[in-house]
């Protein structure tokens, strides 16, 4: 395969704050090809938004330390000066955000905001830009676009505003669209419409899409590949169907068991992942997930797992210290409706039984 459109290599983003250094993104790597969609899934505070904001240089603030490379069509966005990066922002890489209600400027007409997006990167007349704005509104399925273009954001519903945001992102026909929680703030029925719209636009415009979400259900339909992030790292990465059929990481299992599915056995309870996401200032020692992992072994508290290929499953990688064979058995058990409580005995080591949910031991850094 030729060079991917976007290649993130060992990206690290740290912020120095008064409380200490926040390891927001801690060495993530992934790539996206033109026309493909990747989903980045994780809880809030897992670093998923920071990693994509970094791509556009929007985390370049005082106290931010960015390492690694983000290669976009051969250019390293991390090393690019602001002035160069600005030409890519909203032009070759565009972004839409979680809350369309607050992401549009309340004082300017929708048309003005769209026109501004066009004029920032194109030397065209205002009339041309305006015509483009109407065209864009039509493209994203807003009825009566020539009238709506003269309205203010507060005259649009939530779903319609997100369509406007998408229209704005598409203004300059980007090669890559980053959608940061594009449906979280919307009603369920509208969510499906927006996702269908993104899918449709992708097939028509052939761009690559990165969807950032906390909801595996959202990305299931439209992504080709999924990266699961936890505490600033990718803990599992696989083609979408592999994530759903043979997930490898206990955190991914937790995510899957906590979303409702129509095909799950009747009466099965949704199981939340216990505990809270760790602090990114004082992270747990060893495997960062160990304080919340039902299958934790004693040595997992000391050894930091690396993202490694899953044997016999191409394109699937996981950062888990459990043996592959054991992971397979646990997931088959979970998929059959067993709980972590009944499956826990599988991980108990002969010499040293370990209680799951034992009080989390934290690194020398001190308690979380």
């Amino acid at each position, binding site marked *: 395969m030729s060079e991917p459109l976007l290649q993130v290599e060992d990206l690290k983003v740290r912020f120095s704050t008064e409380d200490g250094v926040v390891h927001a993104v801690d060495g993530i790597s992934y790539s996206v090809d033109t026309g493909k969609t990747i989903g980045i899934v994780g809880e809030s505070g897992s670093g998923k938004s920071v990693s994509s904001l970094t791509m556009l240089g929007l985390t370049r603030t005082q106290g931010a330390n960015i390492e690694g490379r983000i290669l976009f069509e051969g250019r390293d966005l991390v090393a690019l000066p602001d002035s160069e990066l600005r030409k890519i922002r909203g032009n070759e890489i565009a*972004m839409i*955000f979680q809350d369309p209600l607050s*992401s549009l400027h309340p*004082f300017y007409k929708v048309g003005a905001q769209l026109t501004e997006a066009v004029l*920032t990167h194109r030397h065209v007349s205002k009339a041309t830009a305006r015509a483009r704005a109407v065209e864009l509104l039509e493209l994203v399925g807003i009825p009566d676009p020539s009238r709506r273009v003269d309205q*203010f954001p507060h005259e649009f519903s939530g779903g319609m505003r997100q369509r406007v945001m998408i229209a704005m992102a598409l203004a300059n026909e980007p090669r890559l669209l980053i959608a940061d929680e594009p449906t979280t703030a919307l009603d369920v029925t509208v969510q499906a419409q927006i996702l269908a719209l993104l899918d449709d636009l992708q097939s028509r415009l052939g761009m690559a899409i990165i969807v950032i979400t906390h909801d595996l259900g959202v990305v299931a339909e439209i992504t080709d590949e999924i990266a699961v992030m936890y505490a600033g790292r990718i803990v599992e990465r696989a083609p979408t169907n592999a994530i759903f059929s043979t997930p490898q990481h206990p955190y991914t299992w937790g995510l899957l068991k906590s979303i409702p599915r129509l095909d799950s056995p009747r009466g099965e309870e949704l199981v939340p992942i216990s505990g809270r996401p760790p602090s990114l200032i004082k992270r747990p020692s060893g495997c960062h997930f160990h304080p919340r992992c039902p299958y934790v072994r004693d040595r997992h508290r000391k050894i930091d797992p690396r993202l490694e290929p899953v044997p016999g499953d191409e394109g699937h990688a996981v950062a888990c210290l459990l043996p592959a064979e054991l992971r397979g058995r646990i997931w088959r058990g979970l998929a059959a409706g067993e709980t972590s409580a009944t499956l826990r005995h599988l991980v108990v080591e002969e010499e040293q039984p370990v209680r799951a949910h034992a009080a989390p031991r934290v690194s020398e850094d001190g308690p979380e």
Partner: protein
Amino acid sequence: MFRYIVRRVLWGIAMLIIVSAVVFLIFYVLPTADPAVLRAGRNAGTQQIAQIRHSLGLDEPIYQQYFNYMKQVFLHFNFGYSYQYNVPVRQLIFNRLPATIWLVTGAVIIWLSVGLTIGIISAIRRRSILDRTTMTGSLALISAPVFWLGLVSLYLFADDIGVWKIFPGQGAFASANTPLQKAEAMILPWLVLAAATSAVYARYMRASMIDTMSEDYIRTARAKGLPERTVIRRHAVRSAITPIVTLIGLDVGTLLAGNAILTETVFNIPGVGRLLYNAISVSDLTTIQGITLFGAFFIVFFNLVVDIAYAYIDPRVRYS
């Protein structure tokens, strides 16, 4: 939009009537001095005082007095006669108003340009040396009383008593004839009056800008690829300035209503504030009442202007 303005104007008028009633009550039900006695002068007999009281209508019931007063105000724009100067209060105020308007207009221009610029820059360069210096400096200016600042500025810069004889000092405005001379005479008063206010505005604007800069739509503007200057000017300042507009309305209103009293007194400027000060010191009730009503009018008027400006700035207001 039209209905919005009409509604606001009607509210303003209602507000003025309420204010006038309260003022009237305060001065006539709880008099600090009997107007009839003041009017009669020294050595006046009881009968003479009673006569004056009758001729002034002060022996009528309070609601009748209020009605008469309001009738005069609304139908003839007559605010009564000053006991002290024996001229119509209206004329007194109109004579003094130009000086106050001179003072306030210049000060507003200075404090807005200085205050807002400092506020915006401090917000953008947060925690920089510039930010810390200006914010500490502004705190000092806010804490400094106006009369003290005025006296210090005269001591340092006035062309008669100053250490450096640079600017015209006390009383220069009263003797100035051409607009240029007047402007020159106003330099020190403008700076003194604007000092504390621009410090307040700088701090407000800074806080408002910092709030706005963390808004989602600012992130959107940046994600569009707009230059940072455009993000700040077109997207951030436009929003951040809205709460400031309210402040401007209130401050200009109260200053025209006599709140520039300290600056006018220190620099001996014959403005409304000085008039009010004199009227209070001799219990010239009709004058005090007239100025208070005028002040209420200015405050209501500028609030109306603010409300309309708001609707112009923020389209969401127009529809609510």
